């Protein structure tokens, strides 16, 4: 590890970035750490490719209704006439045709492509919302525990341990129907927005521990530094200490943990719908589709691959981007 990596990289970039800037680049150019990170990120081929892929996925998810219109098939339409007597799609690779790009679901005969697009939207929305909420909770608890220490630290730590000791899948499995029942009763028609909300809430309750631990460690390391002491000595209040002194110094690891939390929530959401919680069958979801496809491994092997590969590509892009972001923000790390 080099002794002063930040300066080293900064210099290297000033030298290599001299092409278009003319005389300004010859002199000393001041660049904020944020600008440096952005430069490094733009130069990283993996980051650019995965970033573009992520934007593509998000646009696909956001424009799901538009795509439905252009594609001409809805997620709940059934094409029983394209199935054979046993409910298997006619044709090759699970009924792939010009009208149905990814084929049809065996049994109900719904279009897989359009269901995947809607599943993408649900999955991305849940994961992003959950990551945002858990990051907020985690940062709040982590900074408080790390900065104030004492009994508050002990209590927050213990709650973290407790949360980690609860088996997430089983509790989520048991909790979601119970919450739904509480609001809707035995026979109520559950709206899919509510199901999404419950899932996000369950993730929020269990997902904040990682960020809290990370932030607490960072804050403890910063707490004893001179600039913090100086601010304290000049009479800074708690709010100023947390938001103006501590947080600006740890936003990089927070951002990285946020970007790596999103694929984890995508995975968890798919896992939950795989074991059959949360979203009803009306709402298309990756996990649900894969669970349904398990029955057709022998008869319609193509069915498992479309959702399986889509979710892999999504999670893969997020993971690659998160790693590239870490490299850009923290050149010292040797992942």
């Amino acid at each position: 590890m080099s002794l002063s990596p930040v300066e080293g990289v900064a210099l290297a970039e000033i030298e290599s970035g001299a092409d278009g800037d003319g005389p300004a680049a010859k002199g000393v150019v001041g660049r904020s750490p944020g600008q440096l990170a952005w430069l490094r990120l733009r130069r990283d081929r993996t980051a650019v490719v995965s970033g573009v892929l992520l934007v593509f996925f998000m646009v696909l998810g956001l424009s799901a209704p538009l795509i439905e219109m252009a594609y001409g098939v809805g997620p709940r339409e059934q094409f029983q006439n394209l199935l054979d007597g046993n409910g298997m799609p006619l044709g090759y690779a699970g009924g792939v045709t010009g009208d149905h790009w990814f084929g049809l679901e065996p049994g109900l005969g719904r279009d897989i492509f359009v269901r995947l697009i809607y599943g993408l939207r649900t999955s991305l929305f849940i994961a992003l919302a959950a990551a945002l909420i858990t990051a907020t909770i985690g940062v709040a608890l982590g900074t408080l525990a790390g900065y104030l220490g004492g009994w508050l630290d002990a209590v927050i730590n213990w709650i973290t341990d407790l949360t980690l000791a609860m088996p997430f899948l089983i509790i989520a499995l048991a909790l979601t129907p119970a919450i739904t029942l509480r609001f809707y009763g035995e026979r109520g028609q559950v709206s899919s927005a509510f199901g999404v909300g419950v899932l996000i809430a369950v993730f929020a309750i269990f997902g904040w521990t990682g960020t809290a631990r990370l932030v607490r460690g960072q804050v403890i390391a910063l707490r004893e530094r001179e600039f913090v002491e100086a601010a304290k000595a000049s009479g800074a209040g708690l709010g100023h200490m947390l938001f103006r002194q501590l947080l600006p110094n740890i936003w990089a690891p927070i951002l990285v943990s946020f970007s790596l939390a999103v694929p984890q929530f995508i995975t968890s959401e798919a896992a939950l719908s795989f074991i059959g919680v949360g979203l009803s069958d009306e709402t298309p979801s990756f996990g649900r589709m894969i669970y349904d496809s398990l029955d057709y491994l022998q008869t319609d092997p193509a069915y498992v691959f479309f959702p399986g590969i889509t979710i892999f590509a999504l999670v893969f892009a997020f993971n690659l981007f998160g790693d590239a972001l870490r490299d850009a923000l923290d050149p010292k790390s040797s992942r």
Partner: protein
Amino acid sequence: MARFLLKRLFSATLTLFAVSVLTFLMFFALPRDPVSSICSKNCNPERLERVRDDLGLNDPLISQYAGYMKGIVTGRDLGSAQGGRCDAPCLGWSYVTNEAVSDTIARVLPVTLSIVIPAAILWLLLGVGLGMISALRRGTWLDRAAIGFSLTGASLQLYFVGAVLLMVFVYNLRLLPVPSYTSLFENPAKWASGLVLAWVALAFLFSAIYARLSRAQMLETLSEDFVRTARAKGLAKPTVYGRHALRAAITPVVTIAGLDVGGALGGTVITETTFGIQGLGRTAVDAVRSGDLPTIMATVLIAAVFVVLANVLVDLLYAAIDPRVRLR
């Protein structure tokens, strides 16, 4: 040492106590009537009332909880409708399966153990080994292949990998039987062939994470002064890497491994669902579906016990591996 252990066990007990209270409140105090799901729709009110009485649901919550805990420690009398006397680790009686919950657990726990323990050995060996090799051969094609493997593996989903494995090895090539559980002591060959796909799927995904982690740790350790010192004073490479560096690099891996194994022992829900093996995780899912409260409660508690015990064990292992860690 003894003091540390006591302190640690005390906080572990406290955590377990809190988990049990929370779970109890979550499931027994929820608005849904736990009995109506046990008894089918056309169940007469008298029988409902009797079941409610047998389960002690008419007692105040605290005495319900106390009774449950007393059952675990000393055993208790459940009444003739619930199989009478219930011995020491008494986890209640399930109306859904009509057996003592402890019997159900005793039947499915070995299944989960048989899935997790061989898989964990496999993923630790593979993951840590791969990580070490790729750190030592940094920049070579081997390193790049290992990185590619771990990046891919970390983004794959267990149910997808499982489905593909099933499709290839069971349905297409017909090399393996449909996954199922046979006791190890009954027929070791059948035990292994029935579970090997679950091991491979689990080990594949986990070893990706461990390869990545141990590579990063090893690279960091290799740049430390003590490694250079050891090399400079003339120790052979294998001694330096195998004894000095490995020991320092592996501590964080141990932490994560402890938590992962602890978590997995509490039920590998996804694995068991994918391969259709009835272990602890699948039992928990079934219990939730049928509203079988005593079984849900028991599975959650057992899962928590595994996680908490793994935590304590990791702390102890930490001290054994890294002498710099002082147990206080």
